[in-house]
């Protein structure tokens, strides 16, 4: 556990240099630059959002085409109801709004699901202080071919704030 994001980062890079794999990092706020060090890949949520938005667009246009032109065309203020193209100007706003709606919500839901952060989920951070001002680096023996003592030694070299060892059963 560290008490500053910069020390955390230096420590992490030091350890990684030693070929030690950091399992997880818990921090109260996004520590910029930690991801590449501990090898967290860039998320693809952005692409997902785009997909959702496109679905929204299609749905909106399809729907309005069906409601206004195919299912029951009406003469409303003499405006044309013959083809989607002719009516399109009036359909732009709703199309846009609906795309945004789908994009935003789709992404938000995916985000929560992928995180596994959902209502009623138990907190899984090893130490309550990690949501305040402490930074925790989780390193396991399984992932590294090193014994606990070797690891401890390596870790001790860094500007450590506190170290706690648990053994997983």
């Amino acid at each position, binding site marked *: 556990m560290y008490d500053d994001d910069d020390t955390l980062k230096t420590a992490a890079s030091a350890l990684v240099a030693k070929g030690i794999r950091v399992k997880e990092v818990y921090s109260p706020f996004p520590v910029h630059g930690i991801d590449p060090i501990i090898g967290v890949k860039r998320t693809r949520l952005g692409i997902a959002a785009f997909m959702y938005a496109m679905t929204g667009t299609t749905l909106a246009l399809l729907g309005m085409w069906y409601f206004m032109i195919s299912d029951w065309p009406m003469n409303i203020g*003499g405006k*044309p*109801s013959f083809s989607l193209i002719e009516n399109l100007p009036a359909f732009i706003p709703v199309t846009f709004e609906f795309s945004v709606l789908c994009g935003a919500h789709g992404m938000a839901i995916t985000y929560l699901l992928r995180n596994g952060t959902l209502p009623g989920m138990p907190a899984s951070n090893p130490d309550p202080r990690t949501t305040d001002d402490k930074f925790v680096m989780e390193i396991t023996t399984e992932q590294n071919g090193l014994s606990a003592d070797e690891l401890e030694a390596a870790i001790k070299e860094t500007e450590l704030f506190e170290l706690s060892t648990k053994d997983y059963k």
Partner: protein
Amino acid sequence: MANTKRYWSGLDELRETEAFKTIQGKEFPEAQSVDEFLTDERLESTHTGRRDFLKFMGFGLTAATLAACETPVIKSIPYTNKPEEVTPGVANHYASTYYDGHDFVNVLVKTREGRPIFVKSNTETGYGRVNARVNASVLSLYDEARLDGPRIGGEPSDWAKVDSVVSNVMQGEGRKVLLTNTVLSPSALRSIKQSGLEHIQYDAIDYGAFRASAEADFGVNSFPSYRLEEAETVVTIGADFLGSFADNVIYGERWAAMRKPEAGKMSRVHAFETNMSLTGSNADYRTMVKPSEQGRVATALLAQLSGQGSAGQLSDEATKAVVAAAKDLKRAGSKGLVMAGSNDLAMQQVVNAINAALGAVGSTVFYDTMTLFQGSSASLKQLTTDMKAGAVEVLVIADCNPVYDAPNASAFAEALEAMKHTVCTSMFADETAAICKVNAPTHHWLESWNDLQIEGDRIDLVQPTISPLHSTRMWAESLLRWSGKNQDWYTYLRSTHASDYTSDAMYTNADWNKAVHNGFIGVEVEPSQQVSFTGVGTAQAVSELNGRKGGAVEMALYQKTTMGAGQHAANPMLQETPDPLTKVTWDNYVTMAHSDVDAMGLNGFIGQEKPASLVKVTVGGSSMELPVFPMPGQTPGTIGIALGYGRGANGENIGKAAFQTGENGSFETNTDGNPVPVGQNVFPWANESGTFTDYAQYDVTVEATGGTYPLACTQIQNTFMGRESIVKETDFTSYFAERGAEKGKASWNELITLAVHEDVSGDGTIDAQDAKPTSAFDLWHEHPVEEVGHRWGMTIDLTTCTGCSACVTACHIENNVPVVGKDEVRRHRDMHWMRIDRFFASDYSLERGEEEGTSVIASYRKMEDPSANPQTVHMPMMCQHCNHAPCETVCPVAATTHSNEGLNQMTYNRCIGTRYCANNCPYKVRRFNWFNYPGYKKFANFNPAQDSLMRMVLNPDVTVRSRGVMEKCSMCVQRIQSGKLDAKKAGTPVPDGSVVTACAEACPTHAISFGDLNDKSAGVRAISENNRAYHALEEIGVKPNIFYMTKVRNVEPNKA
């Protein structure tokens, strides 16, 4: 092999236990009756704990609530055996005749499932056109205030009792008098003769001087019949012949016959009047004169035309106007016509002299056998004095209400109260009936048989269209019974026309059936006698008129088109129909010139929260406080007040709508706890100085009181702010010059064009000439409307629209338009589908502003003020059924859409009430249901839908709209549908004229016509292609299906 199967009701039976044996064969095993159970003392020992109690309560409450959720059960009684002439859903029409002592019209009564719901003119065989009052009179049939049976001393009684009581006094000694309005029924007159009663007639509005002058000058006691359809020049001196004067139901149509620019026929009307009247607002030239000057106008005319007599002194512009009028009269010669409204012998004599001098007598005015207005106020006065003196033993009163409208009402009432034997046959316990000992209510005209003779050649029939709702009896039949002649009215009436009539001929007489079908019996005419003018007393009349003096303020009493003489005070539909000129509903008031209003420091603008100022008007001894309406065209130094208001001043039960309603449906009450009537009664102020009742006072005083009183106007803006694309008008000369012009080219009706950036004019340069009509601009390629199926449309001719408002009432009765009461109208929440916009001309215009260097802002301000004696435009306005309707596009739920027959249709039950459509309507014709009018307490006193009886008048073909939905003119879609249905049944295309909207049907001057614009042969199409036709607000490009026809005034171009 026998079937050995056995079925057991249970194991007990199988085992045949004792218990089973005992109950075997009993329907209910526990043989204990309810009484036994209740009397069982073991009950005493049981008790219901608090918790149980609460449980029961809870259950009960829930159960009750659930039960309450059910929709109310509406009982309907099926036709077990269907009357042959009644088919549910199909309307029947019966020819009948309306006569109330003033208006006389042949009508067709529309009934549905046996209920009269609509009255329209009988144009095929009939005389006259219904006006707003006649139209709405169908409501009074269902008035819950009508007497449901005879009464003695105010106590309900029965006819046998009443007959015995009255016949006794009739047998007795002493003078027995029958007081009625003018009786036109031969049978009734016959019964009166037989009853041996002394018959005295008087009319609520006295026209005695007309008959008297005819007697004096032509030797015939007849009311003049004016042939306006012949008159090329009409000069009216205070005769409101398009509004309420005399036989108005016929004048309008005849006048319009001479206002046909296409035919090159255009009469010219000069009006000399005190109040702004309908006639004045439709006249080509209008001059403001005081009541006392009207006579001198007549004498001046006479002097101009024949040199007879001498002109009294007149104001310069009046003199100028008289000269102009005289010039036109001379040109017209025998085709000229002069009318005067004042019921003053001298005046009428001078007018007769003028008409005689013109040679108009026998050409535009006839003195034949017109039987209207035989009443004499003199004999009523005599009767009153006799009654006081106790010289009258029995007084029977029929078809009139002297205690309210007699000139000397208070004296009469006093005398009447003192009398022992007084009988009133009024339908209501009205002012007169309330103080008569015996009430023998007569039928409503829709319930009774009658025969009426207005002119020599025909006897018009009144036939019942519904069996009497209450235990009432035609008054003439009562007379028969009381004079010991036990014959029912129908038989009596038949035998009047066929002495050999017997009841076997009741249905078989073909002639009679035909007569009933057509609504009249023809009788052979005696040639109308040629009358010759004697002219005795003209000179004396002239000097009398010239000598007439007027005080500082003079007063002219008038009748409103809506209220008439007050018979209709309890008619909510008429109360809410705005006065055509002031646009005020639910009140009478003092009309005063703007100059006087400012001089007295009174409120010159009546708005929603800007109430009218009260003034104290004093005539002779008596004075009243009335609100002031600043009236353009009111002669300075004069005031006008409408008759026919203030009914039920002592709280007589004449119908709820006659009284002022408070915020929560309670009646406003005055100090002595009586409900406050709508408006105030000014009949006592009629002028009694002469032999005849005249409706002008030459010297009254008006003083401001500082009080205020709200008036409910449907239109608060007076002018049209120079917006020529709404109202187009021109003068006859300019019209005639360009009458052949192609549509849209004539200078007085140019198509509105927009400049475009291409060389349209083909002059090689792109300049202001390069413009295209609005129709050329379209954002999208539109739904086709031309030549596709039907395209219902309407044309409205502003030249012949007089603003009489018959269309308004017709529309509202046909379409169940809710009545919302004074307070809501004041808040600009009238629900009128059909309104008549009244625009006064203003002296000011932007052009004049530029010349005078006034700022645009200031000019617009000035343009809001009408001129002192303005030209007026009456413009009927209803949904324009635009093909590019702005209201349709904005509705989120598609509740208003365009039918493929060109209708802008409103789907009430889809509407969610956002009011966006109303905001976006350029014509502001959409109306929103702000409250639940058929149910909310505020409207309980006047909304027909809230009265269990008056609800009967609602048109079953039209839904009563619920709270929170938008409504508007549907172009009477229910009539269109039934018309199409008939055509379908007949297997023909819809013939032109077979479908007609309520407004078009009611229009007395045929200004409105309706039909299928896609039907090449349709009249409406021809009119819409006429070069006078235009679209209101054409430049918005909403493409209405309603066309207006440019108003043509027959004035000199420079004055146009």
